[in-house]
């Protein structure tokens, strides 16, 4: 491999047969190029999906009531389930040791929010202070609502960044101003941003107690949200989370007299389980891309093998001459193998670099929600290089073996 004489022989052969070498290299280079692009897109899809999911806490559990579909204990189907404050209070108290954050939500759709001459229709949500963490929101300015706001039912509001932009335009003088929600004045105490994007930022939060009083909600609540305390491993977290959701479901169905088999009366959305599903999906996508990529490389390797076979055939007479002059079989194998490994490695690296450069330049320009920051990490690049060298060896071995077995007398007769 490090024999200088051999290298000189190889370069001589290659430089005298430029077109042949170029065509051989092209099939390998394009194979690796396609592999890198595919892997980059796979990674980009993973990043894109991950970003979509950062909207809410990864281990959040959301509970929404629905409509019963089954007759149970003399009650007709078609009954709308209404969650009440005591549902939240009981489940919170019962699972106090397990829960990290918890909040009930009382929601008004299409609440008219007005500041001076600007107004718009947004989702108004009455929540508890923990809701900030359940939604993964962070403050741009001011504060989120606190426990005292809930206890005293203060008329304060936290605006989503989008709402702030709509109502206050570029002005940053927001805190302490009063906005009207359905005609009632609320004091702005903070502005939040949410990784879920514009949709999640088009909301305003008020204390749940205030919302229930002002918008005549009584004891009604629309949904429940929880997160559980962190566990050591993903498996433990998933087990705890599934255990909690099933307990929750049993309790709520019991309390609201719902048939245990009625799945549409209570929806429980367990983010952790969804996350797992999406990671499985991402895994599948990545495997698919790898599969396609490897097949592309195999096609390239077969191409190289084929070309090397033709080269050996073409050089049969030369091989015969070399043998007559004293070339040993091993030296012939070495010569052919060396050439093919060199060509595949060089071409492959070229394809690899071209792919990486393309991803680097074009990647940031891609404007779609599903592909974000498509990159190929160093380990992947390294493994493709290893694949290459192995591929070069495989592509070269059979032709080389064949070449070495040609009897010089037969090779010399070859016209």
């Amino acid at each position, binding site marked *: 491999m490090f024999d200088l*004489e051999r290298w000189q022989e190889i370069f001589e052969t290659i430089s005298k047969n430029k077109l042949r070498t170029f065509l051989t290299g092209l099939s390998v280079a394009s194979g690796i190029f396609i592999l890198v692009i595919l892997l980059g897109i796979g990674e980009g899809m993973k990043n894109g999906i991950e970003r979509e999911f950062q909207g809410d806490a990864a281990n959040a559990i959301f509970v929404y009531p629905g409509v019963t579909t089954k007759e149970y204990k003399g009650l007709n189907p078609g009954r709308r389930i209404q969650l009440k404050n005591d549902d939240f209070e009981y489940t919170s108290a019962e699972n106090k040791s397990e829960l990290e954050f918890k909040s009930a939500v009382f929601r008004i759709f299409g609440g008219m929010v007005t500041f001076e001459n600007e107004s718009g229709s947004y989702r108004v949500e009455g929540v508890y202070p923990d809701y900030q963490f359940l939604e993964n929101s962070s403050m741009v300015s001011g504060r989120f609502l606190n426990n005292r706001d809930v206890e005293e039912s203060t008329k304060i509001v936290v605006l989503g960044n989008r709402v702030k932009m709509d109502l206050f335009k570029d002005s940053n003088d927001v805190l302490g101003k009063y906005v009207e929600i359905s005609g009632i004045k609320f004091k702005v105490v903070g502005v939040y941003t949410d990784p879920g994007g514009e949709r999640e930022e088009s909301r305003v939060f008020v204390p749940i107690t205030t919302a229930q009083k002002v918008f005549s909600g009584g004891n009604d609540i629309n949904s429940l949200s929880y997160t559980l305390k962190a566990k050591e491993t993903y498996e433990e977290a998933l087990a705890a989370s599934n255990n909690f959701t099933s307990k929750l479901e049993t309790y709520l169905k019991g309390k609201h007299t719902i048939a245990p088999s009625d799945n549409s009366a209570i929806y429980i959305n367990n983010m952790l389980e969804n996350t797992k599903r999406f990671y499985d999906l991402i895994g599948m996508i990545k495997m698919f891309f790898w599969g396609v990529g490897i097949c592309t490389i195999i096609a390239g390797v077969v191409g190289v093998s084929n070309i090397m076979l033709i080269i050996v055939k073409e050089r049969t*007479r030369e091989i015969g001459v*070399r043998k007559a002059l004293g070339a040993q079989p091993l030296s012939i194998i070495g010569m052919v193998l060396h050439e093919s490994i060199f060509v595949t490695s060089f071409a492959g690296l070229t394809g690899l670099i071209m792919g990486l450069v393309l991803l680097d330049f074009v990647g940031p320009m891609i404007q779609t929600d599903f592909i974000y920051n498509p990159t190929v990490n160093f380990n992947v690049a390294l493994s493709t290089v290893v694949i290459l060298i192995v591929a070069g060896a495989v592509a070269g071995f059979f032709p080389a073996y064949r070449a*070495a077995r040609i*009897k010089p007398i037969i090779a010399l007769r070859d016209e």
Partner: protein
Amino acid sequence: MITIKDLHKSYKTGNNSLHVLKGINFNVAEGELVSIMGSSGSGKSTLLNILGMLDEADTGSYTLDGVAIKNLNEKIAARYRNKFLGFIFQSFNLINYKSALDNVALPLYYQGMKRSERMDRAEAYLEKVGLAQWMDHLPNQLSGGQKQRVAIARALASDPKVLLADEPTGALDTKTSYEVMDLIQQINDEGRTILIVTHEPDIAQMTKRIVNLKDGLIIDDTKVNQVRALQNV
């Protein structure tokens, strides 16, 4: 130098077996210039291939410079060929993408000689065949006679015990043939053992001994008065 006893060789073609060499007994002393003649199918090429270790005999013994040539595997055969033999072919068999100098240096590469050393030696041999100023030319830029001279320089480069020439003038016109034969005679004058397979009587007359083959047997083996090629040029 070469001792051959009771050499047999047959080829299988399908179900038929073709008996090509039917017991050849043959000695060549050091410094001889021998031509092997015979019509096609007489077995002269087969004999040369066996002498050149490109092929192996079925039975019989072959001794070259005191070394018994038998049970050769590819590796040993390659080493012996490189050490003992120089080949000259009818169709020259130069490697067409290598310069004259690189072609001559090739057997030295397989001897494991360093590049600078083998280039020096190759140049010296090209000088000897009168082609020093052509050393950077590719074979297809040379005439037939020049190609054969390059091939002779290549055969000499590894300083072999025996030169084996298979119809060395077969692809050349008469004048060029005689020039090539003159070169071969000069090399022989220096004491090198040379075997030539030919079917041209005038070429055979330029050697010192003619061995005639017919149907796989030697029918005639006579010393001749050598005709110097230079007289006919």
